[in-house]
């Protein structure tokens, strides 16, 4: 059984206590936000890694990735008598329309060659919607802003790639 009016007093106490504490407002344009690791700001592309396999463009639920490529035939190695012509995909255009992109990250996960990466940069608003289609040069520039992968948790299992590399090293030592 509580006294009548206790709730009213509690309301006043809560608001007053809030007033004496620091506000939680993020002063964004004046102070940049501290983004969590793996923030999805913008997608960066390492053009060198891309084989124009089209997996990302096919998996994209929003159909916002545009890829044009053509095949080039390279002559065989002149030192190798049994060599044959090799064909290779050359990327002509790689563009992501960020006005359609829904930041689902599927393209990045599906890429077998680690050509796509998340960058935490988010300040790329434009006055014209067409400017939101980033061509491959611009996507390459975002790559400089991609942070190093976050460190693993303590006592977490090491990455598979490390185990593979160590095994290869042991094999070469044993030879």
């Amino acid at each position, binding site marked *: 059984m509580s006294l009548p009016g206790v709730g009213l007093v509690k309301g006043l106490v809560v608001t007053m206590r809030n007033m004496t*504490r620091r506000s939680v*407002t993020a*002063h964004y344009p004046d102070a940049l936000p501290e983004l969590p690791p793996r923030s999805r700001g913008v997608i960066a592309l390492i053009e060198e890694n891309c084989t124009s396999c089209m997996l990302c463009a096919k998996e994209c639920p929003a159909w916002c990735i545009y890829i044009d490529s053509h095949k080039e035939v390279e002559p065989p190695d002149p030192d190798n008598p049994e060599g044959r012509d090799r064909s290779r995909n050359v990327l002509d255009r790689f563009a992501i329309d960020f006005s359609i992109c829904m930041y689902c990250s599927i393209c990045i996960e599906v890429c077998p060659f680690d050509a796509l990466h998340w960058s935490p940069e988010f300040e790329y608003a434009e006055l014209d919607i067409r400017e939101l289609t980033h061509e491959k040069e611009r996507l390459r520039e975002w790559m400089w802003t991609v942070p190093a992968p976050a460190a693993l948790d303590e006592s977490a299992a090491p990455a598979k790639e490390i185990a593979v590399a160590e095994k290869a090293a042991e094999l070469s030592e044993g030879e």
Partner: protein
Amino acid sequence: MPELWEVTLRLAVVLGAFLVLPLLVGQVEHKAMAHMQSRVGPMYAGGFHGWAQLVADGVKFVQKEDIVPAAADRHVFKLAPAVALLPYLVAMIAIPIGPGLVGQDLDIGIFFVLAVMGVGVIGPLMGGWSSANKFSLLGGIRVAAQLVAYELPFVLAAASVVMAAGTLSLTGIVMAWTPWWLLWQAPAAFVFFVAGLAELRRPPFDIPIADAELVFGPYTEYGGLRFALFILAEYAGIVVLSALTAVLFLGGWHGPFEDQMGWVWTLAKTGLVAFVVIWVRVAYPRLREDQLQRLAWQGLVPLVLFQLAITAVGVVMMQ
């Protein structure tokens, strides 16, 4: 001739206070409410913590188009903001902040101030009636219902102080005040403050303007400068109510060093009450229309009648 100068000077000071204090209260509301809600409020206007936000708002309001709805009662519609605002200016003239520091010392000061404050409520009522808008009309009728319900406890609470002091003069009431009144007149002070809040339609008693359901009630059709005048009237009303509460119940200029800095005490007490007005707004949700009426008729009126009895007994005993 010097008398004319003195009157002019006093009125100029009152006008200055009327133009500055409501903005000060508004700015404090912006910032205090923000921090109570863990925000920071305006930060940019004027450079330092948004001190010029209300100046910027005023400039914006002035630039807006002056619209009168086609079906509105033009003259009443245009007059309403002035009727809402001016009574508080007139009321301020009669409120003393120190011995002799008053726009015009009236023998029936409290009677005058309460009567004039009652007129202030007519403004929204006119606005609600003349707007030719059903939301405005509903809001206007709620304003009227609120006025009828809360004017009675408001006046009775003031009457309790008048009985205790034995005078209708505001200066005389402060002169008769003793710290013992803080206890003796506490219920009256509470009723006066709550009923005053309701008369000003301040949250939690803002059901007539309830922006979420009545889209600002009587103010729905107003825009630009006329809307700004209504809002200014609300803050001028807070200043008048706070000053009156300070003068009637908190002892006005009584306090340490009252001979030199009595007016500072009055202003400090006024500021304190104004802060409570803001604080209450942040802490409490809006009362429903039936809860509002019940609070007035079943809560405040019996309480203030009880207070009147206590005051009467006290006055007789002390003679």
